[in-house]
């Protein structure tokens, strides 16, 4: 190999790396899970908007749904000496040692969207999250209230097997439903949080439950799966929202579209604006040393066809879902 060729090769690589870095008053590193769903994409874009509003230099590291990548990202944020680190943990465990490093480096950490295991309580400043068990419970309570005393067979579309949100939303729903013996979860399968799988699984539920006649309601761990399930019901000649009740979680724009069409009944909102409050907390902490409460819970609003779904749709459709 000649030195010339090496130089040329290096120059090519250099071009790839030559992206400008910008400066701002506050630099915050955000270890985002990935972009596995529309909701996640919305959270990322809302975070960017909120950062721009406050003139914060936000460095987002996308972990492609892998914890190891998130840990790597936090380590490189520490190495860059950022002012604060936001973490949307992909899983609740396994953060102790890397968060200890952040603490040693005196960088405050704020959890977004999801909490971590209680053992790590003193390692972060605060957590801005919803309560996913509560979300499931809200969905369950709505269903119980809507159905009343009638016997009702519920089918459940679970999230990805092993995902803590899926487990929590299942747990919350099960607890709420358990209080009403007339409600029975007859089938439960994973739809991997995706539309395609949600549709496929719903198709098989319909076949297995007498062409859908035995199903009175569907509960999906997220709206995307429900959108797929609604299509499956329609193709089977069923009327979602009427023949079969639907309740799901997240409040993405498309579920409101379905509500407008009368094909969906209820959703539980998970706000994508977790970064906004977090920025304020960090700013207050940096300037005045205000120590925030350990948990800033976001609201889990229940939204139904009665809550002007068209307006909700219009307000959300530009957020990058």
């Amino acid at each position, binding site marked *: 190999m000649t030195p010339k060729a090496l130089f040329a090769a290096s120059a090519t690589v250099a071009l790839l790396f030559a992206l400008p870095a910008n400066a701002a008053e506050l630099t915050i590193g955000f270890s985002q899970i*990935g*972009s*596995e*769903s*529309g909701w*996640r*994409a*919305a959270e*990322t874009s809302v975070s960017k908007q909120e950062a721009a509003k406050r003139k914060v230099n936000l460095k987002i590291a996308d972990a492609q749904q892998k914890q190891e990548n998130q840990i790597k990202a936090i380590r490189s944020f520490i190495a860059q000496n950022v002012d604060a680190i936001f973490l949307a943990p992909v899983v609740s465990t396994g953060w102790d040692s890397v968060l200890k490093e952040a603490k040693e480096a005196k960088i405050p950490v704020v959890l977004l969207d999801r909490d971590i295991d209680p053992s790590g309580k003193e390692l972060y400043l605060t957590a801005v999250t919803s309560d996913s068990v509560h979300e499931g419970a809200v969905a369950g309570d709505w269903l119980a209230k809507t159905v009343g005393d009638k016997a009702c067979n519920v089918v459940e579309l*679970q999230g990805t*097997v092993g995902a803590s949100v899926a487990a929590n939303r299942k747990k919350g729903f099960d607890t709420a439903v358990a209080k009403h013996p007339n409600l029975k979860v007859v*089938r*439960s*399968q*994973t739809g*991997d*949080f*995706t*539309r*395609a*799988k949600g*549709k*496929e*699984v719903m*198709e*098989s*539920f319909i*076949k*297995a439950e*007498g062409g859908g006649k035995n199903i009175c309601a569907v509960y999906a761990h997220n709206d*995307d799966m429900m*959108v*797929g399930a609604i*299509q499956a019901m329609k*193709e*089977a*000649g069923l009327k979602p929202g009427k023949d079969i009740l639907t309740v799901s979680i997240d409040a993405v724009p*498309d579920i409101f579209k379905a509500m407008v069409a009368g094909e969906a009944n209820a959703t539980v909102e998970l706000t994508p604006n977790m970064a906004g409050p977090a920025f304020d907390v960090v700013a207050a902490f940096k300037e005045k040393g205000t120590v925030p409460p350990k948990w800033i819970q976001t609201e889990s609003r229940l939204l139904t066809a009665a809550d002007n779904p068209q307006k909700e749709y219009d307000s959300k459709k530009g957020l*990058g*879902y």
Partner: protein
Amino acid sequence: MTALLPRRGLAQILALIVILAVDRVVSPQFFDLRLQDGRLFGSLIDVLNRGTPVALLSLGMVLVIATRGIDLSVGAVMAICGAIAASLADSHGLPVVLAAALGAGLICGLWNGFLVAVLGMQPIVATLILMVAGRGIAQLITEGRIVTFSSPDLVWLGNGSVLGLPVPVAIALGMLILTGAVVRGSALGLLIEATGGNARASELAGVGTRAMILSVYVWCGVCAALAGVIAAADIMGADANNAGLWLELDAILAVVIGGTSLFGGRFSLVLAVLGALIIQTMNTGILLSGYPPEFNLLVKAAVVLAVLLLQSPKLSGFAGIMARLRGTKP
């Protein structure tokens, strides 16, 4: 008797029958069929319909594997082409949408083929590049969101029916016939098998082996594009994050279950598609069974191993049964 049974493929057909029988046990209504809105409705149709993407992928993959290659990027190509189709669907007519999506698949295939045939990269690595980058490209097109559309033409592609059969199934069938006609009707099949069997010898016999290799990757890209369009049409939206995720493994599995060797050479389109159906029959069965989803992968692993062992040349007992059925001596 001998004439009626295919030369190969008995193991696959037997496997399919066994899995169908198991499905019937876990779900008594498995074979029920009825007409719903002019379209057949039932679990069997679900198997065909849901099996379509993998069947389409395996049509391209089997040719790639016949040349001793492998294409890990098909899932990502599905995502790219689905995203393109969905983005254009509401502003352009179906021909433009299809042309754009299939054209993108063709370009992806050309890229893979270029890396393998011209730059001489190992197929696994060469296609790994597009596997990683391709999903990013798809997300770039959709900007990470699920791009929905309402174009009735494209929706029909996913949910319509032709003569009672879902459109995707008809398309897959059409592609099988088309690929079969192109490959076996021209000399392509022979030249691909020769290239995969012995590339050096084929080159010296005047076969344009590079062109063969390039063309199979291109075809694989086109098949993946079609699968991507159908997947998008099915859910009336392009989900760049999840469309075709890990389907490359299912497609490779389908080809191998279909009896084509990963070391290239002889291939069978029909058996590859049959392999895809075996996988889907199993998946649908799992969904119908009502077992907790934690078991899904275990069942899949067990079935895959069982089907492979059935095919293993070393299992002489089974070979004996096969031979007796064919009326010849082992």
